[in-house]
């Protein structure tokens, strides 16, 4: 008899895998709260370390807003990067436990469906974290002159950046799950790979936080191109990763 997964078709496999990942995360949602809280704490630590108090007092309103926008963008993406390390470690772990990935492969699920389902589930989790992070950054870093339009633009930029973190994170977490000392290894492998993306995302976000039009489109192009490039490479190589 044909396995059920074979009959489901790629899109069916993909939706079932995403549902599986999300329901696993939901059942263990306390751990997700930990990631959210940790990211918020990172915002607070940075806000204390070099927050609005360190912006020179003599600046005019616009200049002060510009300085705060720089801080806000930098802290938002730093907090997300640290939060992503913990979130990814957990999602990689779940697939390794009790040989779950082996079982999924045996059911005849295509590697492409596995890779894209991982990207989408990581994307959804990180977006949930960002939904908590963005208001915190706006309030604590006092970038309060952002309009609703700016928040919508920021959501767009965040979606692009998160897309990149997810495409890289999906295969890095699969890769490091089998290594010794995987928690710390994941961070040293993941962070350098996402740094180009974080730089681009931060540069673009500074303009958005400052309520300005995007000044340098090269960073925006990198923000769009990097996820596509890494998704392409990831797609080509994910099959090899699953063989181990």
């Amino acid at each position: 008899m044909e396995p059920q997964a074979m009959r489901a078709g790629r899109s069916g496999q993909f939706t079932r895998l995403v549902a599986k990942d999300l329901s696993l995360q939901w059942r263990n949602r306390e751990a997700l709260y930990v990631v959210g809280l940790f990211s918020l704490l990172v915002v607070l630590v940075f806000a204390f370390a070099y927050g609005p108090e360190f912006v020179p007092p003599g600046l005019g309103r616009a200049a002060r807003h510009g300085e705060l926008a720089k801080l806000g963008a930098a802290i938002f993406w730093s907090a997300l990067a640290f939060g992503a390390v913990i979130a990814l470690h957990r999602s990689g772990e779940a697939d390794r436990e009790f040989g779950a990935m082996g079982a999924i492969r045996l059911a005849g699920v295509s590697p492409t469906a596995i890779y894209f389902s991982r990207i989408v589930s990581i994307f959804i989790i990180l977006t949930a974290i960002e939904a908590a992070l963005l208001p915190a950054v706006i309030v604590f870093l006092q970038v309060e002159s952002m309009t609703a339009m700016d928040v919508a633009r920021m959501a767009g930029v965040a979606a692009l950046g998160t897309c990149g973190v997810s495409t890289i994170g999906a295969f890095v977490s699969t890769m490091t799950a089998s290594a010794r000392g995987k928690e710390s290894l994941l961070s040293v492998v993941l962070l350098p790979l996402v740094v180009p993306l974080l730089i681009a995302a931060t540069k673009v976000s500074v303009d958005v936080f400052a309520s300005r039009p995007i000044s340098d489109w090269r960073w925006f192009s990198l923000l769009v191109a990097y996820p596509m490039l890494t998704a392409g490479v990831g797609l080509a190589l994910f099959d090899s990763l699953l063989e181990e």
Partner: protein
Amino acid sequence: MVRSRINGVLGLVTALLVMVGATFVFVVAPIEVEMREIQKVFYFHVGAAWSMFVAFTVTAAYGIVYLIRRNPRADAIAGASASVGWVYAAIVLLTGMLWARSAWNTWWNWEPRLTSMLVLWLMYAGYLLFRSTTRGDARRTYSSVFGIVAFVMVPIVYYSIRIWGSVLHPATKTKWNLDNRMYYGMLLGTLAMSAAYVLLTRLRADVDIAEQEVDALRQEQMFGEDAEG
């Protein structure tokens, strides 16, 4: 036997190139007017940068070969090439910092080439750490994939000046407007560095293969003892 003879010849060629290169760099090439003695750093900087690009390209290429053919030697060469490339990347960064201190009065500057170079160095540090914490087929497959993924950063470093522009670094170019003696110094320095790269990679790959064999024997022995017990 043949391998060690090739390594011996390579060692001799490398030593010869290093001696001739050093003579050109320190004796024949004139002292540059503006930078004075510190300009000598340039010969090491360019040579190491070129060899580093070659090393990381070889790592990615052998990663692909491993994924297609599953030949452990290909993985050993990829890993060895990355470790030598990483040392060269460190040389590029350090000599760059010496130059920066002298030319711009600062050890570090967050311009595109320096930033991307640091990220590249960190990526391959992650690659080497990853190799040291995994074993067997998983290590070979995953590090091959990692070597290919990290290679994405190499063109970014190479083209960073053209993409973002910099007032400090010249764009990487193949035609140089240099004094002839300086030009040959640079050429010989690069050749010496490349020869050292080939030799070190071969030796490191041999050590890697030997380590894997010892690992396999140790496991065999352990299982053998288990069976007897």
